[in-house]
Every structure is written in structure tokens, then in C-alpha cells.
């Protein structure tokens, strides 16, 4: 099915940008969609930041940002938070990724499910549960008072600690996912080889595994960092005004001051910073997720050799320390050649990973006891048992409308994204054309551009064409955000799909359409369903775009929750959160079941 093989004299007329559109047309709708509802709006927003009201060129907004100290401070804090979150996510996520990458496929699937639970659970629900746990009368406070006395000055919420805890929990799964993918490419035999050559566990890890895992760590850190740059929910709910991040400032500029130009300027700065970091990282360690750092064929320069020598010497130190510790332990408990050794390091790792997974999963479940309280306030443990807050939820037209609307929008988004994304993924993974890399970058860019920037840009464009406060507008916005996930998921499935099956069908007399309907799509069913669910969940949990473009007329579930969280957190929220948890669990378990059934014939 390679393009060159089928190239005919008539091809040239249909070729634009090196793409044969007669065969690659299915990618066109998705590209057009992104240009109209992503590239153009973001570009437009950035453009107006350079203009005055009558369209003349000005740098007024940027000089305002530069001269007002508060913006500098906010940028500094944003970077500080993003850096710290990245550090914690990578350091605590690394052992989890290590265990995942080196587990048997069966165990890996199970562990991965656990790591992904927070990914599927609503971000607002998780933030809300941290508010319950960390609050002044919450269980975390009781723990502190138990150890530090009732007058303890340690505060866990409405400060940097709260923001760290909430954001790290939100982003660590992302770091783990990226690092695991890269670590799975590291050959297990390398550690065995090091061991047979006389390396203890420490030396083998620090000298061999660790350097090889660095590209994965860098990719994970990059994605975590860029994503956290655009955060506003956790600092708003778990932090104080001193932890204000740049996305919150943009939000205020629009919602309260309707200052498009300044918001555009701040967005541009945020975007440029994100892209700059992306470019620097990309240059230093190779493309996102590619495990091989050193480029093939390129002879090592003097400088790179010097660096690698320094790096090696540096890594010898932790290796030396861990090995001395190992020897010390062996002096206490000598190795016996006639007894099975106890796997101390293995168990340490497992316990640590267990604690991280508890940190990732368990907090969300506090909403369940809180939701069944009989009292008027959020309290843990609940005061008495009742279902009154569920009655409140079910009896409230606001909540019911919001729930119904979110379901509708999520379903529509799921369908739109799956159709656009699957078609694009087919072209991207099956056809060869020179412009592939930039087009792939276009599809992934909604992940890199901070969500707040996308939301503001869409708001600006929707305002001009009257899509504010419409279901269509929300579906469009959510489709932009979930398209990257769908494209990546379907491309990953297509990568393992044996194209010879299609060729076999073709030689057996099936035309392309019948091949697609009877062979290709049924075999890819599982991948496409999980892509749909990804899009569904992304939309169901989406707040940023809903905040801007819904204009108070169409209130989605996250937006209704956000308003309550900001104004008056009450046990109804716990009841709503429990319902959302239940829905998420059904979706996760459902997709698991589908995948397990498919595993029967997909090897």
C-alpha cells in the first residue's frame, strides 16, 4: 500500500504539498477543522494583542505586562509551581514507571489500570476531595494534630503545599505514562548482562538503566511541565492569592474586565514560553518519547564525549553509594549460596509504588462518605447517615439539566472526534508523504498549547460568529481538545495492525470499502471504542472551555460544580461527585472488559 508503488502519471495533478489527495482526502476534514477552530482563533487572539482598538499596531499590552510587577510575580510563581510539580511527579513517578515497564504484561495491565484511575476520574472531583481531606477540620488535620499537638502551625491547604499536593496528583499519571512507554523500550537483558559481568544492582541501575531511561524522563517532565503551566483549578481551590498562576489572571482579565488584548498578550507569552521549553528539550534529547538519545551515525564530538565522561563519573557516585549500602547489608546478613536470597530491594520498590498508587487513587473516594451525611455541612466522618443530598441533586433541575447536557455534549464530542480522528489517523499511519511531521505536530498541538489559551481564543471567535452559549460551540471546543488523544490512540492501534490482512481480503475479492467494513474496522473496534471513551471523558470533565463559551445559558456539570466550589461547597457536591465517580468506574471497567474480550483473538 505504499504511495510510490501506486503512483501513476495522473498523480501529479492531485498532488499538493506532496500529498496525493485522491487517496489522502480523509485527513482533510480534520485538518480544516483544526485550522478553523484552533489555528485561526489562537492566531487571531495573538494578533489582537498587538493592536489598538482601531487596529493600529502597538506593543502597549506587552509594555503593560512588563512594567506591572504583579505580572512578573505571577509568571515567576507559575514557573515555580510548574517546576516543583514536574520534579515531584517525575521523582515519585519514576519507581512506578520502572515497576510497570518491567512487570509481566498481565501485571502491567492491572497496575496501569490503577495508575489511570485518576486520569479517568473527574479533575474537579479530585480537587474537591483534596479540599475535604486537607481542610481545617479534615482527616489530614487530625493526623497533624495527633503528631504535632493541637496548636500545630502546619497548614496543608490554601497555600503552596495544597497546590503541590493537588497538582502533583493530577499530573503524575501523565509523567508515569510517558516514562513507562519509554522504559518499555529498554532491553531487560542489559541489566542481566551487567549483573553477569559483576555489577551489583546499584551499579547496574545507575550506570545502565538510569542513563537509558533519561529520554523518557525528559519527555515525561516536559509534558508535565507544559500541562501544569496552564493550571488554574488547583491554585484557585487549594491555594491562596499568593499562589495565583498565569491562567487565573487570564481568566480574570476576560471574565471580569473583558480585556481581550491583555489576555491575548498574556496568552502569547505563556504559549511562547511553552513552545520554547518544548523546543529546547526536543533539541537536547530528541523527539518526544523516542528512547534513543544519541543520534545514529553521528560521530561523538569532543564536547559530547567530555559530557558523557562527566555524566558517567557523576552516575558512578550514586551507584557507589547504593553498592556500599548493599555491602553493609550483606555484612549483617551474608549471602548464602545455599539459600534463596530475600528480595529486599524488590519489596522496597513494591511498597513504595503501593504508597504512590494509594496517593493517586484513594483521595477521590472520600466523597462517598461525605455524600451520605445527614448534617448540613461537609464533614468527615459524616454526621449521621442519609440520602438527603442525593435527593437534593436528583430534585434540582439545575443539576439534572447540567448532567443531561454534559452527557449530550460528551456523546456528540465523542462521535465527532472519533470520526475526524480515526480518518486522520488512517492517513497518517498508512500513507507516506513529506509533510507528515508538521501535520502530526498540528494534530498534537492542542496538547501543547495551554488549554486556557485555546479557550480564550475560541471565546473570541465564537463571540464574532454567535456560537457563545450554544451546544455546538461546546462540542467544537471539546473536539479540538480531544482530537490529539483520539489520533494518538488510533495510530497506536494501527501500528500493530497487520496490513497484510487487508491485502489478503483484497486478493480474495473484497473491494476497499468492504475490506474496511468487514476486516479493518472490526479488528480495530477496541481501539476505536477506547478512543471514543477518551474523547467522551475529556469532554465530560472539561471546565475551561465551558467557563468561557457557555455564557451562563448552557451549564455543563463541571461548570455547575465549579460555581458551587467557588461560592459554597456543600454536601450536594459530594453526591454529584459520587455519581461522576460511578460513571467513570463504569466506563473504565467497561472498556477493560471490551479489551479483555478482544485480547482473545488479538494475541
Amino acid at each position, binding site marked *: 500500500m505504499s504511495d510510490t508503488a501506486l503512483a501513476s502519471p495522473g498523480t501529479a495533478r492531485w498532488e499538493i504539498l506532496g500529498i496525493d489527495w485522491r487517496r489522502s482526502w480523509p485527513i482533510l476534514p480534520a485538518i480544516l477543522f483544526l485550522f478553523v477552530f484552533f489555528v485561526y482563533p489562537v492566531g487571531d487572539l495573538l494578533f489582537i494583542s498587538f493592536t489598538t482598538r482601531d487596529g493600529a499596531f502597538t506593543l502597549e499590552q506587552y509594555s503593560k505586562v512588563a512594567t506591572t510587577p504583579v505580572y512578573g510575580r505571577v509568571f515567576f510563581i507559575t514557573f515555580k509551581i510548574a517546576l516543583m510539580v514536574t520534579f515531584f511527579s517525575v521523582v515519585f513517578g519514576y519507581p512506578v514507571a520502572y515497576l510497570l515497564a518491567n512487570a509481566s504484561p498481565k501485571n502491567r495491565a492491572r497496575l496501569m489500570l490503577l495508575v489511570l484511575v485518576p486520569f479517568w476520574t473527574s479533575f474537579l472531583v479530585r480537587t474537591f476531595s483534596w479540599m475535604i481531606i486537607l481542610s481545617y477540620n479534615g482527616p489530614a488535620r487530625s493526623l497533624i494534630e495527633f503528631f504535632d499537638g493541637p496548636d500545630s502551625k502546619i497548614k496543608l491547604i490554601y497555600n503552596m503545599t495544597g497546590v503541590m499536593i493537588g497538582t502533583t496528583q493530577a499530573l503524575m499519571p501523565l509523567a508515569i505514562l510517558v516514562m513507562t512507554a519509554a522504559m518499555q523500550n529498554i532491553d531487560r*537483558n542489559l541489566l542481566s*548482562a*551487567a549483573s553477569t*559481568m*559483576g*555489577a551489583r544492582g546499584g551499579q547496574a541501575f545507575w550506570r545502565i538503566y538510569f542513563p537509558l531511561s533519561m529520554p523518557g524522563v525528559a519527555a515525561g517532565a516536559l509534558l508535565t511541565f507544559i500541562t501544569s503551566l496552564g493550571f488554574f483549578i488547583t491554585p484557585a481551590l487549594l491555594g491562596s492569592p499568593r499562589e495565583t498562576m498565569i491562567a487565573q489572571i487570564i481568566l480574570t482579565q476576560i471574565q471580569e474586565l473583558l480585556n481581550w488584548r491583555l489576555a491575548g498578550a498574556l496568552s502569547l507569552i505563556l504559549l511562547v514560553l511553552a513552545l520554547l521549553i518544548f523546543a529546547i528539550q526536543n533539541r537536547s534529547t530528541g523527539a518526544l518519547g523516542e528512547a534513543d538519545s544519541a543520534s545514529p551515525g553521528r560521530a561523538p564530538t569532543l564536547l559530547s564525549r567530555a559530557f558523557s565522561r562527566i555524566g558517567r563519573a557523576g552516575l558512578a557516585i550514586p551507584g557507589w553509594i547504593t553498592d556500599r549500602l548493599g555491602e553493609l547489608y550483606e555484612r549483617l546478613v551474608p549471602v548464602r549460596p545455599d539459600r534463596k536470597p530475600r528480595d529486599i530491594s524488590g519489596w522496597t520498590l513494591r511498597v513504595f509504588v503501593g504508597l504512590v498508587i494509594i496517593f493517586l487513587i484513594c483521595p477521590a473516594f472520600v466523597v462517598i462518605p461525605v455524600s451520605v451525611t445527614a448534617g448540613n455541612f461537609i464533614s468527615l466522618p459524616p454526621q449521621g447517615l442519609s440520602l438527603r443530598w442525593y435527593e437534593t441533586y436528583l430534585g434540582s433541575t439545575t443539576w439534572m439539566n447540567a448532567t443531561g447536557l454534559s452527557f449530550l455534549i460528551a456523546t456528540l464530542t465523542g462521535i465527532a472526534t472519533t470520526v475526524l480522528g480515526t480518518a486522520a489517523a488512517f492517513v497518517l499511519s498508512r500513507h507516506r508523504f513529506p509533510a507528515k511531521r508538521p501535520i502530526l505536530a498540528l494534530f498534537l498541538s492542542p496538547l501543547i498549547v495551554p488549554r486556557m489559551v485555546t479557550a480564550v481564543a475560541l471565546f473570541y471567535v465564537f463571540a464574532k460568529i454567535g456560537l457563545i452559549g450554544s451546544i455546538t460551540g461546546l462540542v467544537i471546543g471539546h473536539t479540538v481538545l480531544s482530537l490529539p488523544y483520539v489520533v494518538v490512540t488510533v495510530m497506536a492501534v494501527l501500528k500493530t495492525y497487520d496490513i497484510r490482512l487487508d491485502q489478503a481480503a483484497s486478493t480474495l475479492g473484497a473491494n476497499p470499502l468492504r475490506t474496511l467494513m468487514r476486516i479493518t474496522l472490526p479488528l480495530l473496534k477496541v481501539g476505536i471504542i477506547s478512543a471514543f471513551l477518551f474523547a467522551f471523558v475529556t469532554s465530560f470533565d472539561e471546565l475551561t472551555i465551558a467557563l468561557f463559551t457557555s455564557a451562563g445559558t448552557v451549564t455543563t456539570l463541571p461548570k455547575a460544580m465549579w460555581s458551587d466550589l467557588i461560592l459554597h461547597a456543600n454536601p450536594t457536591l459530594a453526591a454529584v461527585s459520587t455519581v461522576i465517580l460511578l460513571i467513570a468506574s463504569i466506563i473504565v471497567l467497561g472498556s477493560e472488559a471490551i479489551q479483555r474480550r478482544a485480547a482473545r483473538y488479538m494475541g
Partner: protein
Amino acid sequence: MNDLDTLEVADGRPDAKMPATNDRPSPQNPGSKLDIRGVSKRFHSVVAVDDVSLEVADGEFLTLLGPSGSGKTTLLTIVAGLVPPDGGDVWIDGKLATYMPSHKRDIGMVFQNYALFPHLSVFENIAFPLRMRRMAAAQIRTEVNRVLEIVELPEVGDRLPRQLSGGQQQRIALARCMVYQPSIIIMDEPLGALDKGLRDTMQLEIKRLHQQYGITVLYVTHDQEEALALSDRICLMRLGRAEQISTPHDLYFSPKSVFAANFIGDSNLIEGRVTQVAGGRTVIAGPGECVIEKKTADQRFAVGDPVVAMIRPENLRLGERSQDTRNALPGTVESVLFAGSVMSVFLRREDGAVVQVKLLMTRHVGENPVGRAATVTWNEDDVVLLRPGDSADE
């Protein structure tokens, strides 16, 4: 099981050098580099290695040969210390090493995909085991250059592994093991990833290094030709057990079981029943009129026993149809396979079974024999009598 008997160590035999740390006997033969005794390993319900014992002498090249799932790789990883056995002992160079972590064993291992560290230069790859042994920098340089000379790749030290060809990577993997002179080098299908031509070259190279430097090798392969070409002895494995341990020559010409006969080379198996074991003769009633005779009385069999007579195809002669029934089988030539130096002729016996005859080709090829009636004959020395069924004689 004669070979096995001589190899197995009589348990509890008193030994002059009893190690102080444990009450287990040290190896019977202090010169042996590797001594595996009664090692077993099961994964859940699958028995991967079932009570295997074998010994590798200093400078010996021993191959574990068997189909996939025969337990050869599991046995190898047990020796390397990568998987702990459920029972039995492993001695390496006279020291008990059953549960020693692999970094404390004196072994080297060549992996199927070589396991060269991709981020380290060839020099650093080879220097790695020496650094782990805290050798001085100057000495490391000398040693690495020495083994690079041995594997005939003196100028590649600065390159990364991926910049080398498959055969070169293979040599570097060997050099990395040879540089620290371990008691034994373990090789796990090291030629599996190479194509046919390169595989033959590397076979010669491995053989050269083994003979020239006297290294002791435990080798794993499923390729019988490779095993026959390289080994001093072969341990044929089947279902986790050592089926037969012999020299390549004995394994080929005196297989101890139908399985061994079938696994190594091509073989014709002719079923029959013993009619006489006496007077220096063993007589077997074969299919039809055929009588198989050997000039020795094989005391393993009694009159009336079922027996399988194994004859290698190259030991059969193809002739005109004759009335002979002693050590002769009539049939019709059904098909012919020409493979260059050798031609295989397939003869359909009168009872329907097929006999394969291998003829060494000379320039004079007769007319196409397909369809002709013919008789195959053999020398009685070339007949190996086996018990029916798959397993070895008990």
C-alpha cells in the same frame, strides 16, 4: 543411559576438600568448571527443568540442544543466576553458587541480542566488567585493546554498538565476556539473529576462540547443525530432562532413543519384533518378509519385544528390485529431491510407509528413477536398535 551414569555424581561421596560453609559435597571432579546436580525448576504448573545433572570440564564446549520448551534456556538462566532453581545444586569452578546473585558468580554471558549497552562506546562496553572489578585505568586500557585484537576489531573502540554490523556486535559481545576471563562463558543462541552466511562465519570464529584460548563454554541452541559443528559434547534436552549427553558423533550414530534419532539428522525408523537374541545374533522380523539381523546379541531385548530399527538415509543403498529379504526392503521410488551434493530418494514401501535414501551425487546421474521398483539394502553395523516410544532406554 550409560553416558549419564558416568556423568552423574554419586551423592554423598566423601571428598577431601569439604567446604566449611555447608554440609553439601563439593564436586566429584575438582577440575570441572560447572557442575549441575539434580536441578529442577517449575513455573506454576509447568515443569521447565526436571532433575538435570551435568558437568562441564575445563576448556570444554558443551551445548544444550533441544526444541523450544525443552528447558534449555531455563537451565541456562539458572546457571547464570538470573532465575533461582527450586531444587538441586549449581557449582561453578568448585564453589557452590546455587543461589549466588549473578554478579558474584564467576561467569560471562553472551545474550541472543548481544545486550550491548547502547549508550556506551564499544570500549566502555568491554571495560564495564573490569570497572566493576575496580581495575586500574591503565590496565583496563591494555586489557580492552588486547581482546579487541583477539576478536580482530582493533579500531572500533570509539564507536557505539549500533554503528557496528551484526557480526561485529557479536564479536564485541564475545570480547566483553573474554576480557575478564570468567570460569565459564554462557551463550544463549548467540547466532540466532544472524543470517545464514554470517552464522557460518561466526561458528568458525567461536570455534577458533574456544580452541585457541581454552575457554569453557555452555552453549544453547535449537539448531542441531550448529550444535554438531561446535560442541565437544551435546546435552540433548526434552521436556525439561537431559535425554542424552554424548559427543556429537555418538549422538548422531548411536542415538539412545527414537526422540534423539528423530531430532538429530534424518532417520528411517523400521518397526519390528525380536525373534531371536542368542548365539551372537539379534534377529528382528520387520515389515513384510523383511528380516533385520545384527551380529551381536543385544541383551536389552527379549524375544517377542517390539523394537525400532534406526538407519540413517545415507547408510542405505538403492538397487534393482531383488528377492533378498535379509537387511533389505522392497518398494517403489515415489519422489526425488535434488539438493546439490546430495539427492534424497523417497521409496514407498509395500506396507505404505516411506523410506528415505540419501545418495551422494557425482557427475554421472542416472535416468530419473521415479516410478521404478527398487530395493534398499544396508550393512548390519549401521542399524541402531531402539525401544519404541519417545523416551530413552531405562
